[in-house]
């Protein structure tokens, strides 16, 4: 275990995993409690269009994905706040059209692009120095913002209508929450892959939800499960030579099953 940490790529991957395990879990708590997981999947798929366009234009694909994911998040938030189209319909439209844009762009770039497919399924080997710095920057930004707006984000997640009546800018805070979600997704796609990234947001928080009835404790437990899933998943994928994202997600699923079996909630609700 010590000698594999001698590899630079493995050090980067480990740092990236800890970052992903922490930030995804924190945002996941809001996603699970407010029921936003479909939005997460939608934003993640939108990043594909950004990544492909980044390759085509020769821009850092992750930076292009940041723009695409933020625009998608704002688009979804705008639609749901105006309520002219049903929210899930709006997500379905964004989801498919940004993915289609990505596929179209791949077609423009003569031939099959291996790098691009690395983004779809995730790869530990692909994390460059630059990627790691960008992820660190995004992760620190997300965690800092959650820290600053902790009470507001809790309020709009628990009771959005009451938050509005108390005079807080509930609409703007909802946009902020979706933006944080978009940034979390971008910082995870290199390792976890676009297709599975929302699973790593949802599953640790869902596992933590089984174990506690206190909000802060749920966030703490989600971070523990998220880190365990990401780091254990990383080493398993190295040893068994499996896809890193899929291994992390399945590790998280194992933790979820375990916590569901141990859940005091479940025991009580059965009574």
């Amino acid at each position, binding site marked *: 275990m010590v000698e594999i940490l001698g590899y630079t790529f493995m050090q980067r991957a480990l740092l990236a995993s800890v970052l992903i395990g922490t930030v995804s879990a924190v945002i996941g708590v809001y996603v699970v*409690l407010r029921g936003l997981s479909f939005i997460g999947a939608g934003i993640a798929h939108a990043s594909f269009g950004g990544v492909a366009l980044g390759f085509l234009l020769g821009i850092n694909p992750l930076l292009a994905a940041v723009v695409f994911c933020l625009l998608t998040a704002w688009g979804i938030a705008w639609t749901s706040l105006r309520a002219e189209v049903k929210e899930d319909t709006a997500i379905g439209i964004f989801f498919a059209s940004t993915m289609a844009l990505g596929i179209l762009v791949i077609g423009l770039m003569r031939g099959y692009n291996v790098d691009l497919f690395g983004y779809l399924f995730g790869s530990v080997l692909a994390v460059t120095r630059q990627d790691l710095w960008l992820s660190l920057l995004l992760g620190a930004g997300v965690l800092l913002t959650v820290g*600053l*707006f902790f*009470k*507001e984000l*809790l*309020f709009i997640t*628990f*009771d959005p*209508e*009451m*938050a*509005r*009546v*108390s*005079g*807080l*800018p509930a609409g703007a805070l909802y946009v902020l929450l979706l933006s944080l979600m978009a940034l979390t997704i971008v910082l995870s796609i290199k390792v976890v892959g676009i297709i599975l990234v929302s699973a790593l947001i949802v599953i640790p928080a869902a596992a933590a*939800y089984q174990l*506690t*009835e*206190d*909000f802060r*404790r*749920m966030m703490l437990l989600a971070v523990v499960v998220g880190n365990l899933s990401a780091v254990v998943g990383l080493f398993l994928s190295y040893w068994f030579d499996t896809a890193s994202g899929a291994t992390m997600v399945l590790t998280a699923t194992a933790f979820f099953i375990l916590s569901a079996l141990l859940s005091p*909630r479940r025991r009580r609700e059965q009574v």
Partner: protein
Amino acid sequence: MDYMIELENVTVRYQELVALEDVSLKVAPGEFLALIGPNGSGKTTLVKTILGLVTPAAGAVRLFGKPPQQLNGEWKRVGYVPQIAQLDPRFPIRVFDVVLMGRYGQLGLIRRPGSGDRKAAWRALEQVGMSDLAQRPIGRLSGGQRQRVLVARALATEPELLLLDEPTTGVDVGTTEGLFNLLEALNRQGMTILVVSHDVGVVAQHVDQVACLNRQLVAHGRPDEVLGGEVLECMYGPQAAFVGHGDFPHVVVQRHGPQEG
């Protein structure tokens, strides 16, 4: 005179459905008004319209003399107790943290609650008799206890105007009586209160004004003036009758005959 709440010819539509039609209502400072009406009569819509959560198709709404959209810093003057169904009992949060939310609006963005906010939250919990359960997760409360948490959250705001939407749904008689006694005491201290209820008997004993809503405002006045045939018909249909029994009125609804199914 400056009214707390003013509705002028308010009509609210949900697509084709007319939820409120041409409703005009004024609530003066210090008033204790009960809004009664059958299910689906637009009571909740009326409350949400007052709070700016629902935008009317026609008419004007003013809260403290201003449209609710322009209230800004004055939201701290309003306490709102939503219907219990709006609260997810599986949300992992403790009673005290819910009540403290009543302070978040006046704290403003980013600032954390301080000792003054905590004191206000404790005081509110004591007022509803829930301070023993402050650290209990809301998932482990009975319906009546959860209802009282919502009242405490609104009181923690220390509002001038309190709006309550069906605060006695699924609550036992003792708790209902306790809640209305508390509201009466708060009203005597100067708080303006609007309570939505379908419990005519309880309402009649405690409030000083009753408004009966059935999409339109059917009647508005003192309970002894208003709670007659017209209101009964609005509430229960033409078969109902009032029976005086001791101090408080009872409602008797005639059974439908077999020919009516």
